[in-house]
């Protein structure tokens, strides 16, 4: 049998023996690392859960998606954001007609309303859109049909319901074919949208009613301008092109020079995505550093206890040295103790962290995502902390003079 390995086995045995003889102290020392690792894992799970759900929503919207917002207007030299939109339905039509990189365009007007169907009522928002809207949002219908261009032209009183609204107003029946009243105007339900879920900002996207924008502007709002124009580029890599074309066209139509501030804003899904990604990254960094600090504090706890332990066991070290332990044996023993404490602490911390993130997912309802990567990283980091913070006390123990150590009271 290999003597070198037997020696290693002996040192391991010695290290484990002294952990076993001081169970309470070992457990308390471990606690710091346990909490640290559990913290890292739970924090990373929450942070990456948040960012992956944001990413999923952005992907669901489609990456060729653009929005044109009304911006500031300049009237009599004062720049201001006018409440009334300066984007017209004609602007939307012009974008569709003149921008080759644009596939779909939908003007949109929005209003909040109390909606009544039979004896039930529901407060929601009514979006007036064009027939391209389902293609722009990649949003299919679960029941019925979307309204037609003819409906838009003639401002027909038809509505497509989001799933939440359909469930609220028609809990026991099919919504399609029923009638509801929006601001006392009767609307015929022609379709129900598929369930979409919560948005990036946490709103329920299914809590909405979709109607032809002409109907919304004329019959519900009484003015003809569009609040937002939704645009889809032909493909994701032509989004920039589409943006430039729209910018040029609208400046022309609104008589704004190339160097002047535009009275509209164009935002691509990508820009909104990168904003969301940046904020979720900030969240990750923040949570991660809080967790890393707690792990560091755990490591300092190990060093503290190991230093106390070396002082307390000076005599033991002296005895071991007198009967033939070399400096490196003592170094290995104390280092091994520190590493075992941090590794075992790390393993318990992993279990605790995984359990904590499951609890967070269940009771707080936050999305959590937990890969092998962060778990392995937290574990490796814990082991490294054991080595790093265990080394100094172990070094001190191994440098003791056996005579002084034996005399120590």
């Amino acid at each position, binding site marked *: *049998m290999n*003597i070198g390995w*037997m020696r290693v086995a*002996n*040192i391991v*045995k*010695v290290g484990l*023996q002294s952990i076993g*003889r001081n169970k309470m102290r070992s457990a308390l020392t471990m606690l710091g690392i346990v909490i640290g690792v559990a913290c890292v894992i739970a924090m990373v799970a929450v942070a990456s859960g948040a960012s992956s759900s944001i990413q999923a929503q952005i992907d669901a919207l489609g990456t060729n998606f653009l929005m044109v917002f009304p911006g500031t207007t300049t009237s009599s030299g004062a720049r201001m954001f006018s409440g009334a939109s300066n984007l017209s339905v004609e602007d939307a039509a012009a974008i569709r007609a003149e921008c080759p990189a644009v596939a779909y365009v939908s003007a949109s007007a929005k209003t909040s309303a109390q909606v009544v169907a039979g004896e039930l009522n529901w407060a929601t928002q009514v979006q007036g859109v064009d027939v391209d809207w389902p293609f722009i949002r990649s949003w299919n219908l679960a029941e019925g049909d979307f309204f037609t261009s003819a409906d838009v032209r003639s401002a027909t009183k038809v509505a497509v319901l989001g799933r939440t609204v359909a469930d609220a107003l028609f809990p026991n029946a099919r919504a399609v074919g029923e009638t509801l009243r929006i601001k006392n105007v009767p609307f015929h339900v022609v379709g129900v949208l598929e369930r979409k879920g919560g948005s990036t900002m946490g709103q329920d996207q299914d809590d909405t009613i979709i109607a032809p924008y002409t109907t919304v502007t004329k019959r519900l709002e009484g003015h003809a301008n569009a609040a937002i124009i939704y645009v889809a580029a032909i493909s994701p890599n032509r989004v920039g092109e589409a943006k430039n074309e729209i910018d040029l066209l609208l400046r022309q139509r609104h008589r704004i020079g190339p160097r002047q501030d535009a009275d509209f804003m164009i935002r691509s899904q990508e820009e909104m995505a990168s904003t969301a990604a940046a904020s979720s990254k900030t969240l990750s960094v923040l949570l991660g550093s809080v967790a890393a600090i707690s792990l560091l504090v755990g490591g300092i706890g190990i060093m503290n206890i190991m230093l106390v332990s070396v002082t307390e066991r000076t*005599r*033991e070290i*002296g*005895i*071991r*040295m*007198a*009967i*033939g*332990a*070399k*400096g*490196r*044996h003592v170094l290995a023993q104390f280092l091994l103790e520190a590493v075992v404490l941090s590794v075992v602490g790390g393993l318990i911390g992993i279990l605790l962290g995984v359990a904590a993130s499951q609890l967070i997912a269940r009771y707080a309802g936050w999305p959590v995502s937990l890969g092998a990567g962060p778990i392995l990283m937290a574990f490796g980091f814990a082991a490294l902390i054991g080595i790093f913070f265990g080394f100094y006390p172990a070094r001190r123990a191994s440098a003791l003079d*056996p*005579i002084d150590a*034996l005399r120590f009271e």
Partner: protein
Amino acid sequence: MSASGGSAHSFVELTDIVKIYTLGEVEVRALDGVSLTIDAGEFVAVMGPSGSGKSTLMNIIGCLDRPTTGRYVLDGIDASSLDKNQRAEVRNAKIGFVFQNFNLLARTTALENVELPLLYSDRLTTASERRTRALEMLHRVGLAGREGHRPSQLSGGQQQRVAIARALVTDPAILLADEPTGNLDSRVSEEIMAVLQELNEQGRTVIAITHEPDIAKFARRVVAFRDGRIISDQPVSDRRIAQRKESVA
């Protein structure tokens, strides 16, 4: 296993050993030109009042410390020139320590205490070999059946027997006992000295440091120290033979 040797070559050979400690500005000559030769199979008592240099001598013989000047040869090895790690190896292989306060590891069974030197040794590498050897040693000092006891569960005399078993487990060239009976009453002291005498009769070289003349009389030869020098070195004329209470196989 028996103590190595048989031919009467010198086991411990100290030549002009000087040990100087510097305490702040003051130099203390703990050993001031000591020359001493101890042969295999001897039982030597080193006597002297505290501060006479006997503990310093014990540290040098036990390879815990190095002389400032002078030469120390232990079993053919020039121990005065060894580095820290080499001295640790020599301590492990050639020297068995018995201390005044036993120096057993607390919360550790007698068996584990006795096995301890083997963990730092190249010999007896398997756990079962170590265990067999340690049990044999415990049996030899009359502690068969107590291998699972911890030091706190043993009397002073029993603890010192465990310490002797631990000192013997690597089959060392010399057994170095520093005030082995200092913490024990006279009856138990005699039992411990009986163990040392018996081991000596079996051929083991024993060096015991003591300040009690009664204890020194169990040895065959007494070396007396004062102020870092040897003041007398003579055989024991009225040697005491310790009463054995228990058989020490």
